[in-house]
């Protein structure tokens, strides 16, 4: 499956079925990130039910130092 993850073209095999699986495959700390799929926020509660499709654009953000 080809995805755009944080602006980077990314190929994931096997294809993740949903956003929760996507985060596991990307080895991202799921409690410490927020996810946008094609510009729309996917809440924590929705992650397991929200399907990921070929060509989707995903943003995964977290806290960093700032003022």
């Amino acid at each position, binding site marked *: 499956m080809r995805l755009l993850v*944080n*602006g980077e073209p990314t190929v994931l095999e096997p294809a993740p079925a949903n956003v929760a699986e996507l985060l596991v495959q990307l*080895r*991202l700390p799921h409690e*410490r*990130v*927020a*996810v*946008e799929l094609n*510009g729309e*926020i996917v*809440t*924590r509660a929705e992650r397991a039910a929200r399907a990921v499709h070929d060509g989707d654009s995903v*943003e*995964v*953000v*977290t*806290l*960093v*130092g*700032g*003022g």
Partner: protein
Amino acid sequence: MTVNDTPLQLGPVSLTSRLIVGTGKYRDLDETADCLRLSGAQMVTVAIRRVPPKKEGERSLWDVIPPDMHILPNTAGCYTLDDCLRTARLGRELLGERGKLVKVEVIGDEKTLFPDVPATIEATRALVNEGFVCLPYVTDDPVACLRLLDVGAAAVMPLAAPIGSGLGVRNPHNLAIILEVVKAKRPDVPVIVDAGVGVPSDAARVMEMGVDGVLMNTAIAQAQNARLMAEAMKDGVRAGRAAYLAGRMPMKLYASASSPLQGLIHTR
């Protein structure tokens, strides 16, 4: 002597420390953690960014923010209304119950990092309607501050000088007018000086004027000894607040002797 003071109220959040600190520009996470603690701050600002590549087991900012610390996500780096709203929503999703507040920041100019004031007002209006508690960063413009009150800002945060400049208070008179007009209209809405403070005397000076709090980052993080400066800033803010509450002496043009004129051993 302990200062008998009311808390700094930011929406639902009550703070006894009037110093809010940023978490950027530190040399490492140990320094960040120490400075947060030494500053006595009960609220920290953070930025929302794409997840950086990280090695297994490596610490992140999450590990050094104490669990009882209030977190104020910012929309720093946003130049448009849409980017600001999107960043604020991601911050709320990320922080859950801890993410109801947002520092609204829409930048209008790359060199000065001065805010895009109309976009800041629009962003504040939209985010308030979505249930956010908005603390907008704004130019030291009294009218802009009043417009932010109109759209429901929970505090106004005028700059003292450009972000990261350390120039101190460039326009104390505007700040005095902001305090006057904001307090006349909404005495319950805090005025927080955000950006431009360089040294504790800058922080003390604005606190003496009656500002409700100070938000700073670079002045601590980029001091040669950041830990010592964190403590110094805590003292500066506290001293300024105590002086404001104490009420300064009236100024006079001529001298007024502190020692008695009676009982002098010589004649004049």
